[in-house]
């Protein structure tokens, strides 16, 4: 029983306050899972939004692959759809930022975040639980897209080991964008900002190697696009799966895998501390 608390009939003894370090880690893992499982319960209770989130990249893949794709040439030759599928993996990862931001903003504005913060739970569990749930969601989304990609003729040419590395790089980018999403979700005023981000992801995606190769753009735009972190991951995935379009003379194009690891680490290094600090000091 917690000292000072009124005994509650039917309530089992509560883990003591101020436990040791090992205990804290157990508590963090447990509480994070409880928070993440809340999202899974949401998926079960309201499957609509999840299905839309899963199918939206598929829709874009079909639109670009079959409607625009015929008019697009891949530098160095090759099928546009084979070029597009790895790009869509990155786009799906990018869209994930909206899921994160919506969840964080909604909880914050409804006062649920404050309730969590006033509970005797492991510090960091709210954020860790959010990470866990969103990574699970994105992994599921990538699996769906991988299946659709295979069904539309995309093939992984270079073996399971390199494909695993490609998936790892995609999830690493998702992890980085998660922190950006949490940070934005904590600082924005209201849900209308989420709509703003939903719009802004498009120029960000177009100004990258997701849909077309930067080498086909005007030189100065192409240079920006080549250095876009999204391009690094897209090019790295194409490289690892042996897909066409891995051309271009820029340093960025030649070191895509290094950049696909470096950019997310940098984004995480900037936004994870910012988000954590913001979460601890939600001042209003």
């Amino acid at each position, binding site marked *: 029983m*917690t*000292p*000072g*608390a*009124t*005994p*509650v*009939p*039917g*309530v*089992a003894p*509560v*883990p003591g*306050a*101020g436990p040791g370090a090992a205990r804290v880690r157990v*508590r963090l893992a447990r*509480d994070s899972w*409880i*928070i993440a499982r*809340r999202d899974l*319960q*949401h998926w079960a*209770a*309201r499957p609509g939004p999840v299905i839309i989130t899963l199918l939206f990249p598929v829709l874009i893949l079909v639109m670009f692959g079959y409607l625009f794709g015929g008019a697009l040439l891949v530098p160095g030759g090759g099928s546009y759809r084979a070029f597009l599928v790895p790009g869509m993996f990155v786009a799906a990862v990018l869209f994930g930022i909206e899921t994160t931001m919506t969840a964080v903003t909604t909880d914050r504005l*409804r*006062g*649920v975040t*404050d*309730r*969590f*913060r*006033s*509970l*005797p*739970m492991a510090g960091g*569990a709210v954020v860790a639980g959010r990470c866990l749930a969103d990574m699970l969601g994105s992994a599921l989304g990538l699996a769906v897209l991988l299946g659709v990609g295979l069904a539309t003729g995309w093939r992984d040419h270079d073996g399971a080991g390199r494909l695993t590395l490609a998936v790892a790089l995609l999830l690493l980018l998702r992890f980085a964008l998660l922190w950006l999403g949490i940070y934005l979700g904590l600082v924005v005023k209201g849900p209308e900002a989420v709509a703003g981000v939903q719009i802004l992801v498009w120029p960000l995606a177009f100004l990258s190697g997701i849909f077309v190769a930067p080498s086909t753009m005007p030189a100065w735009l192409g240079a920006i696009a080549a250095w876009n972190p999204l391009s690094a991951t897209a090019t790295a995935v194409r490289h690892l799966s042996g897909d066409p379009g891995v051309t271009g003379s820029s340093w960025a194009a030649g070191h895509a895998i290094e950049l696909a690891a470096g950019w997310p680490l940098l984004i995480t290094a900037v936004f994870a501390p910012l988000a954590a600090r913001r979460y601890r*000091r*939600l*001042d*209003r």
Partner: protein
Amino acid sequence: MPGFAEAVVTERLTKRFGEVAALDGLDLRVGRGTVHGLLGRNGAGKTTLVRILTTLLRADGGRAEVAGFDVRRQPAQVRWRIGLVGQQAAVDEVLSGRGNLILFARLHGLSAPAARRRAAELLEQFGLADAAGRPASTYSGGMRRRLDLASSLILAPPVLFLDEPTAGLDPHSRAEVWAAVRRLVAGGTTVLLTTQYLEEADQLADEISIIDRGRVLAAGRPAELKSRIGADQVEIVLRDAADLGPAASLVGGAVGARPHPDPDTRTLRGPAPRGVRALTGALAALHDAGLVVEDIAIRRPTLDEAFLQLTGPDPADRGAGHGDEPGRARAAGTEVAR
């Protein structure tokens, strides 16, 4: 059971948001097992205080203890001993009522079976058992509030913070929440309640602190405060505005305080310290003088009027000569001041 003498103690607590001093050296003591009402207008600092006491916000200066623990140095200890009901019903809209309670119970460290048991008890206690399986988004405002309240009582915390718990509720839902709070208090919980409504503080609180601009203006039992705030107010509407002058003298003589005439509405307003009996005399005097009364009403002083009694006229009227910063004038209360 190891205890604490006072549920909440603050000393010279300060918090600034930019240029605005939300708390300006606030001192407060809340005795164990009591209900303490924090009464103040919007922006008085009530919510800032509750957020500091519930470890959500750090004070800039001063000291605060809840249940015997320093909120800054021992926030984890404080969190084990408090419940918080914020201004909005902080419940998960997608989960059911039961799902919400199980979630929060698990996060309080209960095992899954214990969480289910506790959720069932609380649903029963707060009259939500029938709606337990429905998503919280389908609940009425009052039900949502009760679920919110139940979610903050998982461990039956010794100190409960209610930040404007009935804001935005209809009268029926408000009565439901009041009844729930009374039951808790009967069980020995200390409650710190913020409200903008004099009536709510009066209904629920053993002690009231009136706060304004981050300081306690006055504190005491409701009866003491009411006597300081002033008695009931009387309003007499005359048929003819020209009668206001003579009528004010007659009423003043009968009730013991000269009322304030308002020619626009042909109304006399003023305190009625001697109550209804004196008023009967005033009416008789008006009748004898041939002055026609169209309407008469007695009402409790409003919060704005209470502030006027405690602070004097609105700061805008007091002017900068009294050390008030210009530009801090508030719109509320000015109507009464003039």
